[in-house]
């Protein structure tokens, strides 16, 4: 059964345990990084990077994604693409005033300044 026979699994046991320990360490790092009080964009980036590393470990080792078949990869790639669309496009709406002429009335300009 495609690399998942008893012998392979026996060898993989050690890997599972090591990944488990790594995940715990990275969790510690996540909490530790929080103590540094980075500026929000940096904090987000750091947190997401660490989470992505942890997530990739879970996905590739525990969920066997590193040995999975093309259909699974294909479905996941498609999903990840749409996931990114869902994350980013609505955000662009809120940030979009590019190209929109903002002709503020002088009094109102004081309120809108700084965004």
């Amino acid at each position, binding site marked *: 059964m495609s690399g998942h026979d*008893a012998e392979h*699994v026996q060898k993989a046991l050690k890997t599972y345990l090591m*990944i*488990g320990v790594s*995940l715990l360490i990275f969790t510690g790092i996540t909490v530790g990084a929080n103590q540094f009080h980075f500026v*929000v964009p940096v904090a987000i980036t750091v947190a997401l990077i660490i989470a992505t590393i942890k997530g990739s470990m879970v996905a590739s080792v525990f969920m066997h994604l590193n040995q999975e*078949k093309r259909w699974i990869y294909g*479905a996941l790639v498609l999903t990840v693409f749409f996931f990114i669309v869902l*994350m980013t496009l609505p955000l662009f709406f*809120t940030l979009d005033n590019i190209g929109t002429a903002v002709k503020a009335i002088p009094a109102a300009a004081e309120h809108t300044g700084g965004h």
Partner: protein
Amino acid sequence: MDMNIPYTVEERPDTGLANGKLGIWLFLASEVMLFGALFSTYIILRVGATEWPHGELNIPLGAINTVILICSSVTMVMAWASLKMHQWGRHRMFLLITVVLAIVFLVNKYFEYAAHFATGEGPWHSTFLAVYFTMTGLHGLHIIGGVIVMLYFLGPGAKLYQKNPDQFTNRIEYTGLYWHFVDLVWIFLFPVLYLL
């Protein structure tokens, strides 16, 4: 009414997959979009907010829960691995430990929620808490669902191992995939809600 559906246990040669394996991954893909929509909600509401609370959540408890869930992922994969190595007793032990860890997670969440409700701060209190309760609540429902499935495989479902050990092993594998996904969501939820 046992229709003989091919590739229920053995893999189809050209895809290399059994039906259930493809099925559970497709389900997980839909779950990615489900939680994705909630993360998108979080992003939109936070970007649009004039202020966003910090320090309202119990970070140590959240971190402990993260540790618990990671350990449960390890025991879950061990439960499946034991089956692959035909070690029924160890499989049962690991699966049971996974269930216990999951329940501890839920108990911790109960304490967290109770602490908030005690001060009258439920999901209605702010958009931050609304997002927190909804995302962790939905995640918690997924944990409960996983526990139910695991209890089934510890209980009445275990009989299948006698009849068709390969099919049972596959089902444990699929349960494990679901469980790892639930862990994965928490790996992102914890920093996003508790730390950022």
